[in-house]
């Protein structure tokens, strides 16, 4: 029983991080209809930015806020400078841009900060007042903060004018433009938000997997699986998808014989199964396109 609880809680914690990545993947997909393959590397880069602030003596929460804010700006700038020009280009061109970004961020990080792993401090105090061998304080904090981020994102879309405009731009660009919404900027804003949420994920995962240029590679894959499972059009679904993947992954590792060899296989099978049988995911809406 103890093992079951430990596996589940650890799964929820790592699942929260998949959720952050899944959520940012969904944001970009909503905005520009594409998977951003560089999402993970952008998050990794943001984490290095936070690490740099830390090195300059900034306290951890300040570094966190600064890195997330800078990532937001960077996301907007990337959309304006790199993604917008290929907006109407064939899909392969766009994918090349994303893959290019992935490689550029990865190598740039290695070049600037070297490839050795770096310890990254937790955002949360080591002592929450109670101690448990079931879950560490950082893992607990990760789950809490992710839920908070989700709540904020939800409120933003539900209760603010900008959120409404963004939803309009994603759902029906032409009508949105007619009622005066600047669709282009809404897309850029989507990219910025995605980058910011990704940064949160990166900073949360770094204390667990350590900071290094390849730290997000595996996470991104599971994030994709989470996004697809929950529904690529549904932010809430993506979060839930990430959590489910995290927990299932641990259960498979723990209880299926030979399971730790199959964790990744399992995520990939899940991706394929969702695409085959329920392409819209658990919570996504079915998109019908006129041709």
């Amino acid at each position: 029983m103890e093992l079951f609880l430990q596996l589940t809680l650890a799964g929820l914690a790592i699942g929260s991080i998949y959720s952050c990545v899944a959520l940012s993947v969904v944001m970009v997909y909503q905005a520009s209809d594409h998977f951003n393959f560089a999402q993970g590397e952008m998050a990794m880069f943001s984490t290095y930015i936070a690490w740099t602030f830390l090195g300059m003596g900034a306290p951890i929460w300040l570094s966190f806020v600064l890195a997330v804010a800078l990532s937001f700006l960077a996301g907007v700038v990337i959309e304006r400078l790199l993604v917008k020009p290929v907006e109407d280009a064939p899909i392969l061109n766009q994918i090349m841009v994303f893959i290019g970004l992935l490689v550029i961020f990865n190598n740039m990080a290695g070049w600037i900060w070297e490839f050795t792993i770096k310890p990254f401090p937790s955002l949360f105090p080591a002592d929450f007042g109670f101690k448990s061998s079931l879950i560490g304080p950082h893992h607990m904090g990760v789950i809490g903060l992710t839920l908070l981020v989700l709540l904020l994102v939800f409120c933003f879309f539900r209760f603010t004018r900008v959120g409404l405009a963004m939803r309009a731009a994603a759902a029906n660009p032409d009508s949105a433009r007619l009622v005066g919404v600047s669709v282009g900027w809404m897309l850029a804003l989507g990219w910025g938000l995605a980058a910011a949420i990704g940064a949160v994920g990166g900073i949360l995962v770094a204390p667990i997997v350590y900071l290094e240029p390849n730290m997000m590679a595996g996470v991104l894959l599971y994030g994709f699986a989470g996004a697809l499972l929950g529904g690529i059009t549904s932010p809430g679904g993506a979060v839930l998808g990430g959590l489910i993947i995290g927990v299932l992954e641990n259960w498979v590792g723990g209880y299926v014989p030979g399971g730790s060899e199959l964790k990744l296989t399992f995520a990939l099978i899940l991706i394929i199964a969702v695409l085959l049988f329920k392409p819209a995911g658990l919570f996504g809406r079915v998109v019908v396109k006129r041709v």
Partner: protein
Amino acid sequence: MRISTFVTSVAATLLLTASASAQTVGVTDTSIKIGNTNPYSGPASVYSSIGKTIVAYFKAVNADGGINGRTIDLISLDDSYSPPRTVEQVRKLVEQEKVAFLFQTLGTPTNSAIHRYVNAKKVPHIFVATGASKWGQPEKYPWTIGYQPTYDVEGGIYANYALANVKNPKIAILFQNDDYGKDYRDGFLQGLGDRADELVVKMLPYEVTDPTIDSQILELAASGANVFFNITIPKFAAQAIKKSCEINWKPLHLLNNVSSSVKSTLVPAGLECSKGLITAQFMKDPTDPQWADSAGFKEWSAWMEKNMPNADRGDILYAYAYNVSKLLHMMLNGCDDLSRPGIMACATNLKDVELPMLIPGIKVNTSPTDFYPIEAEQLSEFDGEKWVLFGDVIDLSR
């Protein structure tokens, strides 16, 4: 009798002409051309510090006048740790650049991909940067020679240690699911002997693509093991140490040498959690304060200061690369016959060579039948600050 003399002299003449023509490949009176591949990009780029150091080393040698009047023309190419690219780059080195030999090509899968090719081409493939056991097969692959102690033998050391020091050992093993992990695992299991099945209570693999190995550690701990053999690369080793500390699992923790660096593994894992770890070592860890005053460390440190002032000296790979470069330097220095067979002969006749960053007492020895240059290690235990060597240097020569 006469016939055999005749045959011998013909053979000798043939050999001489062969070596005379071979001598021209990559070697002139003023230069020696050497090829190398290294992952300067891609997932294993952490090892690029090795390539950079080797290049810097021979640049410095050239600045000092080269080796016996010859400058070293070292061509180091990026293979991104991808075997097909290694094949492509090595072909380029051998067929276009016409290098005399290959040195320190890095990686187990990458070297496996060119193993047959270089042996068919009879190109010396010297001191490869991998600890797999397959680089020491003089009969089958006479042109390839290893460098560092092999993983399987090191695994055996840990097995002996666990058997001798733990009453009723119940053993858990975590290993990377590839050649490297399996070499260590198999050497360890072999060391346990017939009782291996009964002693190992849980054995789990992980993939390099796994974001974390938390669930593996939870499971291994739940097996009730009192010995844990940790066969992981630094990132996962640090995770494993930290996680087992977090859940209060305190077995005899045997850590493979691959991840023994204080700075890259133990500091990220937490020094307090790292107390009591056991590893086998053959090199001086540059972050370990006990070596700071040794002559070898000072030599290396001064060289780094002069030639690579901006590099992070806590990274043991710089010391690793300095050692092996120095070994090649010394070897070429004493090598009169620079034909390809001659170079191979020099590489396989090294006697008691000492290198600055090897643990005192560990020396390089090779012979025409022994293609394993370094075959000794010493056990050490981490005391919360540094590795404390104990016992004798264990010589594993086979």
